């Protein structure tokens, strides 16, 4: 009698756990696509693609993006590759650490580089879609070297983040250095 009850109860428990595990895995996987207040929404959604937007220093609670570095001055540039590739430039000097990171529509970094990769005192990157890259490469001259770094984005939209950490001068120096960064949509490529 007892065994007759225990076996179905165990089967039910296993079935419930199994369904629960599947629901859990599916919800973890779909959440990034439906999260209403992800990094892109918080920092980039309100800005115009192809313009630099300075982020407020991470010292106030009104700044709702968690775990930003209060010692680092940051700016972002939203991209929308449907409007054209994005060219970004950041001037590099000895007085600060400069990093540029490329984030998808879901806020995840897919490429990054720091001042160590600079050429002639600047970091210059063109961000394109795969089809735009094909078109640009077809137009490259055979013998001239390509100076700029070309990166393809896995998503049509997203944002580029510029981070500057000063060696001397503290945060105000970083904020000043941040004014040298630029981004613009290349409509003629």
């Amino acid at each position, binding site marked *: 009698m007892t065994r007759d009850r225990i076996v179905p109860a165990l089967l039910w428990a296993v079935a419930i756990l199994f369904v629960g595990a599947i629901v859990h895995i599916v919800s973890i996987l779909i959440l990034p696509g439906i999260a209403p207040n992800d*990094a892109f929404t918080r920092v980039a959604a309100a800005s115009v693609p192809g313009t630099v937007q300075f982020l407020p220093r991470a010292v106030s609670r009104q*700044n709702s993006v968690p775990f930003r570095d209060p010692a680092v001055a940051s700016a972002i540039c939203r991209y929308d590759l449907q409007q054209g590739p994005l060219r970004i430039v950041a001037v590099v000097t000895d007085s600060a650490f400069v990093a540029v990171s490329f984030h998808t529509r879901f806020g995840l970094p897919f490429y990054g580089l720091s001042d160590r990769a600079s050429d002639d005192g600047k970091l210059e990157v063109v961000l394109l879609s795969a089809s735009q890259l094909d078109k640009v490469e077809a137009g490259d001259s055979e013998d001239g070297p390509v100076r700029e770094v070309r990166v393809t984005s896995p998503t049509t939209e997203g944002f580029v983040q510029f981070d500057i950490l000063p060696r001397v001068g503290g945060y105000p120096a970083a904020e000043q250095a941040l004014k040298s960064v630029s981004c613009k949509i290349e409509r003629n490529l």
Partner: protein
Amino acid sequence: MLGLGTTAWLLERKIDIAAVRVGPWVVWPRSGTPEIDPYARAIYAQSGQIALASAEGVLLLADMDDAGTPLTGGCSYRITGELPPARFWTLSVATSAGLPIDNAAGRYAFTSAEVLRRSNGSFAINAASSVRPGNWLPLSGPDRFTLALRLYDSSLGNTSAQLERSAVPSIWKEDCH
């Protein structure tokens, strides 16, 4: 319900099965790369945190001291020891949710360029709510807090999972009031 409840519970506590604990610090290997694990991905999407690209740096968080006791603003702490290789680093204080904590001194972080070192190059940072000599990182309020250590341009990169205990700083509780 069970499945969604587990998801909500894990995200609320930012529990990531891929996170690696090194002494009091937690590090998320691969979180700054496209190979980010699904849990970290969901946690970032929900909290709005921008992951640090691995080419830029590595983030380590601590919400406990070396003895495993939660960090609270009512106690003072001494952070000392080795740091993993990096061109620059910063150490800052945040709430458990990662938001900045106001303090009267207006000091929010220590950077590798600012920290005062002993003659042998080592250093100690004192996190306390009252003024301390040397490297004082102000705390405020009695609540739990999180220490964030960022290593910029670190050779660790994707190998942060293999960090050794001796390579990261210790967090010692000094006194509580």
